[in-house]
């Protein structure tokens, strides 16, 4: 089944592009956003750490945590009213904003911002980036009035970390570990962790043995300060989850035809289906295509041989005719390998719409290049 990308871009409010890195996910996101803008919609593309070149291609020196307008007026075929904004996720800033929003007072806010452990998790360690990406999407969806938001999700090592990360954090907040850790201080109504040493909890003593006292103390202080904000965080995260599950949101699997990349797409597919999240389709970039029939006719082979004989060949590099036929055969082999890899995926077997995008042989340097890529993305 083919994937109708123009229709998808015209209809949806949120498109989330998932996939491992290096498969053209950021470029695809930019192209989808540009396509939406060309249709006359107001569109935002949120990217995670894009290559500088892509930001430059969109006419920006760099992207920031706030939406920036991208000038598409020079492009042809843009419908009236179409506009494009771009932004890049700043994990720490987003986390700080969230603390700002939910801290009950200035003391708590400062205590969190100064906490060692907070500085550690809010910068860029695994998990927090995924959490904050979704938080930012929600913020934008609520505070702004875009017709379409295209999200280039973080290239996680593990499928759907951006959905799992908040849940893991809540499990921690609600779990026994924290109750045990915080009990001594809470019992005394204290906002510090110095009572911890007298705790008789075996699991705590055990943790201390592994990690040392200082670390647990920092951790407890952090969670104590955080506990007041927890409800706000949790409610927000539930709303993010709702937003992703609604009919106007769609997930797109982005991959390349190599086995490793298709495997990764497969895992995304399984997880998304398991979570009942809406998958619009799979986009396979960099697909090799063969335009001629599998084995050239005798007439063609002869014609190639005659043609090659008329041309001053490169001496010592084998006959030109042979090299031409070899190149043709290789193109078929590459195309067959790609087609077979794609067909063998569970995604294909489940009838998910697939769009194959031919290998694009040059880098993207301008909005026009992105527009040309968008054209390939939509070609049937």
């Amino acid at each position, binding site marked *: 089944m083919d994937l109708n990308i123009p229709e998808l871009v015209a209809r949806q409010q949120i498109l989330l592009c998932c996939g*491992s*890195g*290096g*498969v053209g996910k950021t470029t695809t996101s930019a192209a989808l956003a540009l396509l939406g803008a060309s249709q006359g919609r107001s569109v935002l593309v949120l990217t995670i*750490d894009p290559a*500088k*070149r892509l930001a430059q291609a969109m006419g920006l020196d760099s992207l920031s945590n706030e939406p920036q307008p991208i000038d598409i007026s020079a492009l042809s075929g843009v419908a009236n009213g179409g506009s494009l904004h771009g932004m890049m996720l700043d994990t720490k800033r987003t986390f700080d904003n969230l603390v700002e929003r939910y801290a009950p007072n200035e003391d708590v806010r400062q205590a969190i911002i100064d906490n*060692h452990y907070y500085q*550690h998790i809010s910068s*860029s*360690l*695994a998990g*927090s980036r995924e959490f904050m990406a979704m938080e930012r999407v929600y913020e934008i969806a609520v505070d702004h009035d875009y017709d379409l938001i295209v999200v280039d999700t973080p*290239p*996680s*090592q*593990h499928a759907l970390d951006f959905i799992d990360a908040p849940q*893991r*954090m809540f*499990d*921690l907040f609600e*779990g*026994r*570990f924290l109750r*045990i850790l915080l009990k001594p201080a809470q019992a005394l109504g204290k906002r510090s962790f110095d009572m911890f040493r007298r705790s008789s909890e*075996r*699991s705590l003593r*055990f*943790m201390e043995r*592994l*990690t*040392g006292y*200082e670390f647990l103390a*920092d951790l407890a202080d952090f969670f104590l300060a955080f506990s007041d904000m927890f409800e706000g965080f949790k409610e927000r995260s539930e709303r993010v989850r709702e937003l992703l599950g609604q009919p106007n949101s769609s997930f797109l699997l982005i991959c390349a035809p*190599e*086995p*490793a*990349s298709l495997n990764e797409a497969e895992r995304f597919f399984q997880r998304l289906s398991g979570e009942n999240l809406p998958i619009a389709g799979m986009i396979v970039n960099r697909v090799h295509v063969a*335009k*001629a029939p599998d084995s*050239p006719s005798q*007439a063609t082979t002869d*014609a*190639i041989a005659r*043609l090659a004989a*008329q*041309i001053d060949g*490169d001496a010592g590099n084998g006959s030109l005719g042979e*090299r*031409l036929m*070899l*190149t*043709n055969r*290789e193109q078929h*082999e*590459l195309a*067959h*390998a790609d087609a077979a890899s794609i067909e063998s995926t569970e995604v294909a077997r489940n009838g998910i719409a697939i769009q194959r995008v031919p290998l694009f*042989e040059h*880098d993207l340097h301008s909005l026009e290049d992105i527009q040309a890529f968008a054209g390939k993305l939509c070609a049937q």
Partner: protein
Amino acid sequence: MTDTRPPSGNEASIPPCQLLIVTGKGGVGKTAVATALAAQSARNGKKTLLTIYEREDVVHPLLGTKVSYELRKSRPNLWVSRLDSRLSMKEYIHRTVPLHLLYDWIIDGKVLTQFTDAAPGFDELMCLGKLYDLCEGSDGKAHFDTIIFDAPATGHCALMLRTPKVTAETVRTGPLFQNAMRVHNILADHERTCVLVVALAEEMAIQEGLELQEYVRETLQFNTGPMIVNRLRQPRFSAGEIEQLQQADTSNEEVRVIIEEAAAHHALTSLQRGYLDNLRTKSSRVLETPQVIQPTFQTGNLINAMAASLRPALREGK
């Protein structure tokens, strides 16, 4: 199979370190390069371990061997395993904490799992801890001459490599500090560990690769090896040939397509050579690995062809 001649540019060599950490932008064929390196190292008579970063047991996509936390032998001289933070932690505790059976309920229970799942950096630290044990042979298992770590992609790998140091700085004292420093020290030992970055001859992949190399070398001060540029195709046509072919007058549609394909091949290889030449002006240490094209995809052929191209770069014998 075609295009598998050992490329001409493989004069750089891979430092004879025990631990080789293979990373690169996603989609550049890290796994193929790591596997080929491991296969060639094993063929050179070195006892070799290929270890990967996976949360569950998997069948190795190129070797076809099951990969679990326990070491498994895949070929002569070649073992495979995966790193797993929770199992590493359990193993570590069993080795260091007396009366550990008393604590298994904690280790397996929800309390600790919730903590470790949410603690940023925990997973990375524990996996590197296991890597440390494998290098030192401190888990009482066999000692390996070469350990190849098929590491996460660029961004995640950079975070991972700095986790021990960041953890040590966050914790400041105590056993976690000491262990984190121990892991950091082995990674920072230029004689023992080398980070290998894989790229494609494409603008963004090379840029990201160079940035990672610089980060590893300058900021982390770890050893980096040559950049491995993968999936290269050898130039086959001259510009003159392509020009004449395109001017040729033909009404045969198939002939047109074949000429177009030759032109595309020429454009691709020219582009690749351009990026390679440019890269060589910035770094003299470059290794080339080929795009392997085969009538039907066979992982064995892929590994053999890539291993052959890497052979000159790997020191033989013990």
